[in-house]
């Protein structure tokens, strides 16, 4: 008797368009998959640049009173590092992942506006080039937050500050157009049967990511335009001597800046919500709660910006209100973490690399989330803000909540993009290096801040145990970098030598796994009817049912070219 092999659900194309080749086809492409790949490659390059800047920062701070770089170069380094990581890595990387996978996950053939999509990418690349061109002159020095009046023409005469302004403008337009595109795609192009209650959770987070961008970006665009005119066209928006206000800059910047951090972290949460159920072999626990908490976090995120300004001369009512709104936002965030743990609970957890990155991300994000509660308590914030305590907080939440999930997504979705698997062994090494590196670099920074070490200082005196703490932190940063390098090498090697993946190597839940790997240009010949939040499970069950009902148990055909999938 022949052994029953479950058939792999696939739709065979009867006619496929010849795939375009050559570099000119990439420059002119409007295909969301190719644009997604260009986004991902570009943002990884900027990630590496930002990482080099970070290593230089840590090398300068490794010993007290170091002279590796001058004060000017040091200020430029942390400005470039923060700006690169926020505007040229995390936010556009999420756009890149969404570009590739959003249409596939909702059963669409492309984005709503393909040419606008291409424009978004080229604007991102152009903005990054304009910004990094400042390396050949004078890079900006006023921090990624471009503190004012330091960033005005009197105190920052160099054009580097203008390069920063142009970066915000150009990448801002790129993100805004992308956000409109994502929003239109999600609202209009879902497969039949995909109601809001069946939307994949990653798509929910891209929806809120887009709404946040649409509301917040115009505010920062206005703020940096006002800074530009203050610098060059004689206005005095932020100049106290002529009736302006430096506090105005802080309000305008942070009204954008705080939603920006949720823009960065919510898609990371979406990735976690996709990956954990697949590898726990259980549905997500509390789909409605996770979707609702995503929307709640996005909304509340607009009410908390002044917690970056607790030490500024603002009225007391702001201090109290913003502390309470910041406490409130901790509730939906905590709920998500508990829902994720409950997803793993009583599952059968498979320790594949995507799961390890995401579960590790949750555990490490938790540390940052808890330090956030300290920062939200404004009397405590008066002691720990603008110190290494807040540097520690922001890196735990961003690396735990965005970077590690991005790496999990790379391991999860690389088979779909390329048709090959990444090496599991190297994946684990990459995670453990990054997790250890994150802990070694940033845990001790909480203590550095509590001991009184401010941030954004190019040197410190040998007092207390600061020399030891900084040395630990510096060594840790090289482990983190090594972990990133291992994944990059993994990707490079697996592009040629990776094991063939097939359409659904993970037996996952969402529609992108219904296509071949990589998907053809038109994604789907037939858009499937969606019956639940886990359409692939329904499809597999239906195919199984038809195969066992339609013929004898052993007669199920396995399409040629498919690889072992497992039961």
């Amino acid at each position, binding site marked *: 008797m022949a052994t029953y092999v479950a058939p792999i659900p696939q739709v065979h194309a009867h006619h496929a368009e010849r795939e375009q080749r050559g570099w000119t086809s990439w420059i002119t492409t409007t295909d969301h998959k190719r644009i997604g790949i260009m986004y991902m490659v570009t943002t990884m390059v900027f990630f590496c640049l930002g990482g080099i800047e970070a290593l230089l920062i840590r090398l300068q701070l490794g010993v007290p009173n170091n002279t590796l770089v001058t004060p000017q170069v040091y200020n430029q380094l942390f400005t470039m590092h923060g700006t690169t990581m926020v505007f040229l890595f995390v936010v556009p990387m999420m756009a890149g992942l969404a570009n590739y996978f959003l249409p596939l996950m909702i059963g669409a053939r492309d984005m709503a506006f393909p040419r606008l999509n291409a424009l978004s990418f080229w604007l991102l690349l152009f903005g990054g080039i304009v910004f990094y061109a400042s390396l050949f002159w004078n890079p900006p020095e006023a921090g990624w937050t471009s503190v*004012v009046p330091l960033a005005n023409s009197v105190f920052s005469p160099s054009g580097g500050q203008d390069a920063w302004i142009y970066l915000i403008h150009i990448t801002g337009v790129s993100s805004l157009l992308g956000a409109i595109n994502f929003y239109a795609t999600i609202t209009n192009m879902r497969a039949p049967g995909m109601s809001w209650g069946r939307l994949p959770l990653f798509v929910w987070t891209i929806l809120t990511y887009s709404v946040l961008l649409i509301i917040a970006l115009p505010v920062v665009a206005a703020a940096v335009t006002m800074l530009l005119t203050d610098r060059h066209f004689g206005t005095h928006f932020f100049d106290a001597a002529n009736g302006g206000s*430096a506090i105005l800059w802080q309000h305008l910047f942070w009204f954008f800046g705080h939603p920006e951090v949720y823009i960065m972290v919510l898609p990371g949460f979406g990735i976690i919500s996709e990956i954990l159920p697949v590898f726990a072999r259980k549905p997500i626990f509390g*789909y409605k709660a996770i979707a609702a908490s995503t929307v709640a976090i996005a909304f509340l995120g607009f009410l908390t910006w002044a917690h970056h300004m607790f*030490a500024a001369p603002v009225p007391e009512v702001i201090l109290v209100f913003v502390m309470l709104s910041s406490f409130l936002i901790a509730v939906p965030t905590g709920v998500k973490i*508990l829902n994720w743990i409950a997803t793993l609970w009583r599952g059968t957890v498979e320790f594949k690399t995507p799961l390890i990155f995401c*579960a590790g991300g949750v*555990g490490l994000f938790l540390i940052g989330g808890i330090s956030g509660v300290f920062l939200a*308590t404004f009397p405590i914030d008066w002691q720990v803000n603008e110190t290494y305590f807040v540097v520690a907080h922001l890196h735990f939440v961003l690396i735990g909540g965005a970077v590690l999930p991005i790496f999990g997504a790379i391991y999860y979705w690389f088979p779909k993009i390329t048709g090959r698997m990444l090496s599991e062994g190297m994946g684990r090494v990459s995670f453990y290096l990054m997790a250890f590196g994150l802990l070694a670099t940033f845990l001790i920074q909480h203590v550095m801040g*509590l001991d009184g070490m401010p941030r954004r200082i190019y040197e410190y005196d040998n007092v207390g145990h600061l020399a030891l703490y900084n040395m630990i932190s510096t060594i840790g940063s090289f482990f983190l970098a090594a972990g990133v390098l291992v994944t990059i090498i993994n990707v490079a090697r697996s592009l040629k030598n990776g094991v063939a993946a097939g359409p659904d190597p993970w037996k996952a839940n969402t529609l992108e796994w219904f296509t071949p790997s990589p998907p053809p240009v038109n994604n789907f010949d037939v858009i499937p009817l969606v019956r639940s939040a886990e359409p692939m499970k329904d499809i597999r069950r239906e195919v199984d049912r038809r195969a066992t009902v339609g013929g004898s148990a052993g007669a199920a055909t396995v399409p040629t070219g498919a690889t072992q999938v497992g039961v």
Partner: protein
Amino acid sequence: MGHLLPSTLAFFTPESGGSPNANEISSLFKITLAIAAVIFVLVEGALIYALIKFRKKKGAVPAQIRGNTRLETGWTVAAALILVALAAVTFAKLGAIQNPPNSNAAGANLSSLDEPLYASATRKLPPNGKALNITVIGRQYIWQYLYPGATERDGLGTPYSYQEMVVPTETTVSLNIVSSDVVHAWWIPELGGKFQAVPGYHNYTWFKISKPGVYKGQCAFLCGRQHARMVATVRAIPPVQFEEWLSRQKTLIAEANTAAQASRAKLNSATGAGQVENP
């Protein structure tokens, strides 16, 4: 950046010890830390337990649970309650952190030193309205302090010092923080939190030191290339010595001004044409 207290708890708490507001902040931090530690152990523990206990084993079947409304409501309410408790503790301690107490009787004689204090919306005064008011001026890259005394009958003008602020112990000192160029932040960790010096604005804080000594701090808001070196110290001395120091400081400044006046006059008469600009 302060000396380290000889206890392991000092590893996990902000600097304190110089002034009651700093001590109250540290105490609030410890309470928050205790709650945070419990939550961390429970949640991180649950995560690690789940990953170990429910890893894929031969024959194990995953439970197809989609949710549990009672459990989810329960933990949402519990999370909110914990935060309500934290907020309540914060408000309970807020008064001691923000509101300066009266100076001690042994403190500096404020009736001769104080100037009219105008309470503003954010400035807090001690209950009897008297404090030693010092204006802190931030500029790239040095702190300047203006002491009371401009209205003294000796006509010697406002005493000031740079980088090191001298204050009397047992006395409530009220700081009026301003800036003459970019945003800075005044911070002496053992004496309390940090407050921005913003051009065009006043920002206020206070401290009251009981133990004489030197308290170190530095600028805590990016203000330019030498931000790292914009240090500040507060030297607390007994009130009688403070009054002596203040009058000596006024005399020294007056002498320096007279000498400068004389050398300017000499330069002007020597060169003949044009005036030497007032430095």
